[in-house]
């Protein structure tokens, strides 16, 4: 009896060690750049772990995939590639991947590889294998809907593979409901109104993030973040852009000024910056 109790406690100890090892992966962190968010995650996102991104609504798919790409860019290490895995159905429904748009978010499309699987089974198999290869820095897995195959086992497999190689996995779940998983963090992404630029132009990518789940940590917090393409990091959204203040301060242009129609807004903004 005492023997079995001892064995049990030993087993418990080993499990606890294993869990601790799983949580505190030895691959370090990458920071989002948003102070309170990183603080809540105890220093940042863990490398070599699975991070899940859910879209709030079908219309937030653009924001959610954008956030997945941004997270990938935060996690990227120099000299490594990013792999983006999609299914054929995703291409049909969500549209074609646009490398120029990836560049506009701050990424380098030449380091990006796109793999298109015929179904979710192939997608997850490829993801698990790709995660084992440390030639990739980040693997983004775009999975639409809630396939039955994406269960706890599949997610555990991905986590183990990622932990083994230190590759960060970003699981992008579009049109999906929450399923149990072994993800390190789980995010709900909604689009948020951006602070406008000069001439009322839409501003920088602004997202409402909800931390739905964090392994071994508090969850449920919400942040509004803005993506800074040039620094490849998130920042708190600023209410008023400096550019506007400055353009307001500048004296009106000398000479006959043609009222700037909507056509010239981008130009007007560039001019305002030049003058400022």
């Amino acid at each position, binding site marked *: 009896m005492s023997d079995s109790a001892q064995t049990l406690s030993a087993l418990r100890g080993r499990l606890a060690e294993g869990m601790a090892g799983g949580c505190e992966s030895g691959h370090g962190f990458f920071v989002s750049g948003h102070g309170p968010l990183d603080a809540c995650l105890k220093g940042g996102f863990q490398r070599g772990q699975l991070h899940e991104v859910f879209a709030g609504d079908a219309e937030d798919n653009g924001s959610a995939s954008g956030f997945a790409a941004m997270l990938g860019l935060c996690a990227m290490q120099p000299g490594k590639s990013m792999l983006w895995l999609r299914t054929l159905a995703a291409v049909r429904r969500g549209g074609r991947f646009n490398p120029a748009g990836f560049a506009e978010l701050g990424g380098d499309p030449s380091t990006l590889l796109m793999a298109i699987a015929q179904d979710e089974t*192939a997608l997850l198999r490829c993801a698990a294998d790709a995660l084992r290869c440390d030639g990739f820095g980040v693997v983004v897995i775009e999975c639409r809907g809630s396939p039955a195959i994406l269960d706890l086992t599949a997610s555990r497999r991905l986590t183990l593979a990622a932990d083994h190689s230190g590759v960060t996995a970003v699981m992008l779940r579009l049109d999906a409901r929450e399923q149990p998983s072994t993800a390190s963090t789980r995010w709900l992404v909604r689009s948020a109104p951006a602070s406008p630029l000069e001439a009322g132009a839409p501003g920088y990518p602004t997202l409402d993030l909800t931390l739905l789940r964090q392994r071994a940590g508090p969850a449920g917090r919400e942040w509004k973040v803005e993506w800074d393409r040039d620094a490849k990091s998130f920042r708190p959204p600023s209410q008023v852009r400096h550019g506007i203040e400055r353009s307001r301060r500048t004296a009106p242009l000398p000479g006959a000024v043609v009222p700037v129609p909507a056509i010239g807004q981008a130009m007007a903004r560039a001019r305002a910056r030049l003058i400022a």
Partner: protein
Amino acid sequence: MRLVSLNRAAVEAGLAPGLGLADARAIVPELAIHHHDPVADAELLDRLADRCTRYTPMVAVEPPDGIMLDITGSTHLAGGEGPLVQAVQGHFADWRITVRLAPGSSAEAAHALARFGHGEAGGEQATIRALPVAALALDPESELALRRAGLKTVGDVLDRPRKVIAARFGPASVYRLERLVGVSAKPIVPRSPAPRRRFRRRFAEPIASHDYAIGIVRELLAEANLRLVEEDLGGRAFEARFFRVDGLVRHLRVETGLPTRDEAAIARLFDERLDSLADPLDPGFGFDSVELEVLQVQSLKPSQEDIEGEARSDSPLAGMLDILATRLGRNRLLRFGPNDSYIPENGQIPSVALDTPEACIWPRPQVGEPPARPLHLFDPPQRITVISEVPDGAPRRFRWRRKLHDVVRQEGPERIAAEWWKGSDDPLGRDRLTRDYYRIEDSDGRRYWVFRHGLHAREVASPEWYLHGLFA
């Protein structure tokens, strides 16, 4: 247009090569013509020459329409010279190709007999003597001079002293003459097809075990690697063929992005390929042989081991990409290169990642600007209905997927004209509509990329609106 070559019926009707098409039509109104395609002819000739390797390995092509076979030492395979000629004739007759065949003791003799002979009456020498001087294949001036001198046949020239012939018609005529009659000989230059790296294992008894057949492939891989090491080559494409007793042959093909001699890696690719087969490799009544061919090779120098005695491996990425490409299909693993086009959906060249190992340089976006292009583009763009203040103004409200959105902020238009320098048959070329792109944000804080298709009143009466992408 002139006639280049004719069939027998056309020649009998009185036509000749070089005749103008109009003249030829005047003679034979129902003339059927095909455009002259020398490249296709050369390809056909090459293919036919390939087929002829079944009779002898020494096959040379004589453009534009000749094939020379050196059958020395290989006639007994067909049972003698006569049966061989018949076999060749029969083979080409199956393909409905008319051939003129002539065996000769030298290449020139065979050439002359095939082109100028009319069946052998006596011995070969007698036939050659009866050939016209054109069979010497001299330049037209010398040929004309020979005929002017009254030397009509090869025999006439042969009877004259060589010295006289050489002095009067040039040394080339003597060389040709001696080769024609077989006094001197020049070997033919056979086509040298790239050596095929094929490794085959035949079995005394058909094997019905799937696993054993796969094991044989691994053994053949080891054999192939020995050969590749000798040649300093690495394989880029491998094909395994499984020959079943009932005649069915299954092919498995794998490719790698970098040349490799790594048996384990290639075997793993074959395993991947086997897993992704729609219908599994069925041995049926058994395989009687298994073959492995290295289809494509590339130079691969042996790499030096580093100081710790471990062989340096290429980036682990290459192996992974091979596996993914084998599993998903090579066209499903892509890398993107920039395309010099302003049309958004055309601004990229997706290329197969296996074929493009080197990265290309993308232009950097302007610092400080918000993203001007969305991450995904709807293909095709999704139709929306738009209300705007003026017909050529910015959208104020739009309906997408049956939901109404109020536009709060907008920027634009970014006008992208069709590529007028391309022809009107091009899907993006001239006569296509100009697009006015707007970046807009609705009252819920979502950002969209929409465009008006066509300029109001100038290109179309009432332009359509489309949603092309969602911004983050």
